């Protein structure tokens, strides 16, 4: 343990990002319930809302739409929980300030967080797609599946930002109920549980203003070609901008409070 000073090169930013991705992944995956919880709910929803309804499960188009909706729900849920609750918990851990003081800067930690959020989001999609493939008439091609996953990652951006805004604003105990209160109404109003054509007109109008509905319709469009409503992208990008502003403000405020 010599105190010799060496002039060896510092590890590069990419190396550090990968390091943080890897160890944050290990940290999360060792708590199986955190992973399984993400998998179970969307899978159960498939069995409750989709598989028993022959009208939906028997129709390739409607099954695909249902699988897309619940996959999106899995992603929203993973984003809000892993960023919202996860970040709030991290902030309370005394290891957090220690990691901040390592010679790395904030980028590797942020990258680690976001990449892991994506990984666990996609984990949640796997059972939904499998159930859709095995028990419904949905039969996407490999290319459709790939396009769907890429679209999911893109439309997950506003939810990632929303999760970060919650995580940096609230203590873990408050973040958990807040995430639940945000997630379920958003998912319902966005037509992730019930298709929007069943909505009364007023609810449909409200629905079209939610980020979940915009994301759903964009996803459905890429998968089935059924066009999204005209301003879906505007709604999605608008919310992304709002959540980004909130997340940045919450991050700065947190820095200011804990590390001034």
């Amino acid at each position, binding site marked *: *343990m*010599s*105190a*010799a*000073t*060496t*002039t*060896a*090169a*510092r*590890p590069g930013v990419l*190396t*550090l990002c990968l*390091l943080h991705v890897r*160890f944050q992944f*290990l*940290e999360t995956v*060792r*708590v199986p319930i955190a992973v399984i919880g993400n998998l179970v709910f969307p899978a159960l929803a498939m069995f409750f809302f989709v598989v028993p309804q022959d009208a939906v499960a028997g129709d390739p188009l409607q099954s695909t739409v249902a699988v897309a909706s619940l996959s999106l729900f899995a992603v929203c849920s993973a984003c809000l929980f892993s960023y919202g609750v996860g970040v709030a918990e991290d902030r309370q*851990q*005394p*290891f*957090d*300030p*220690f990691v*901040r*003081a*390592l*010679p*790395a*800067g904030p980028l590797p930690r942020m990258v680690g967080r976001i990449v892991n959020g994506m990984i666990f989001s996609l984990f949640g999609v796997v059972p939904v797609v499998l159930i859709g493939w095995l028990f419904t008439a949905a039969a996407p091609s490999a290319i459709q599946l790939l396009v769907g996953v890429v679209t999911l990652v893109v439309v997950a951006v506003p939810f990632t930002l929303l999760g970060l805004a919650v995580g940096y604003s609230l203590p873990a105990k408050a973040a958990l109920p807040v995430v639940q209160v945000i997630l379920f109404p958003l998912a319902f109003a966005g037509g992730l549980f019930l298709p929007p054509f069943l909505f009364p007109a007023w609810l449909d109008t409200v629905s079209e203003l939610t980020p979940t509905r915009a994301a759903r319709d964009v996803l459905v469009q890429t998968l089935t070609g059924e066009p999204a409503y005209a301003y879906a992208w505007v709604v999605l990008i608008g919310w992304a901008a709002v959540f980004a502003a909130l997340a940045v403000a919450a991050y700065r405020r947190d820095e200011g409070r804990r*590390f*001034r």
Partner: protein
Amino acid sequence: MTEGPGGAAARRAGPTLVEVDRVTKRFGDVTALDDVSLSVGPGELVGMLGPNGAGKSTLLSLVSGQRRPDAGTVRLGGGDPRDAASRVPLGLTPQETGLPPTLRVGEVVEFVGRHYPSRVPTAELLDRFGLADLAKRQTGSLSGGQKRRLAVALSLVGRPRVVLLDEPTTGLDVGARQALWAAIREYHADGGTVLLTSHYLEEVQELAQRVVVIDRGVVRADAPLETALAQVALRRVLVRSDAPLDALPGVVRAERVADPGTAGDPRWELYTPDADALVRELVTSGTPFHGLEIRGASLEEAFEQMVAHDAVRTDERSAR
């Protein structure tokens, strides 16, 4: 070991590793540090003493770049500690309770070690701290002493030039404490620089060459260990008497506490390097007294002592 007054000057002439210059740090209405200056040169082992809330941890968080001073400058190896690159030569400990519970011991060492250009191999480091058998255990299952050892090991994994140790042995039993002290001494013997905080006088006495006393955000004393010890090694003699006891030989400092609540003689607090001699003196002088008690000077009293080291002083204060 002994450093004359020239030592401090020589130290300051050399390149400093840690340079805190007239730093002020406030949290709302509370001034955590008030115009504090401190410089630590290569190879020094500095102990920072002070009661809880004195500003020690705040000072360390400025040196490690976690916080920004409101006024003044902090330099680490010549750079701003808020730049990640400046923190390469810095080693520090997480708080004992702060290890990620699901990661294994070996993994935490890997994770931290890989942030540095040159590192102690994990196996070697764990071996040195007696943690080799625990490499595969999750940190959540470690005992308090094991966590503490791991925390100090983490501070050394990047072959730092300077290490900040915040209360490294708080809550440890004697054996574990000795083992950690040995590791800190070994690092220092290899040329490492250490800045440690403690509220155990004993720990600072055991390790440090230079003692810095911080209280209420102000550096109250900064002296070589011997000088500091001479101040701190006083005994406190408590006794009730009507006579002017501060005139007794051997009394370095005296306080007369008039206690309005109880009728009778005022209470004296006498500070002396030799309590036995003072008591002998008190008895043979024939002065009437009662309620005699002898105590070691507490840390807080030691601080007061270190600041007020000008000969005999009598303070009159009324007890609350």
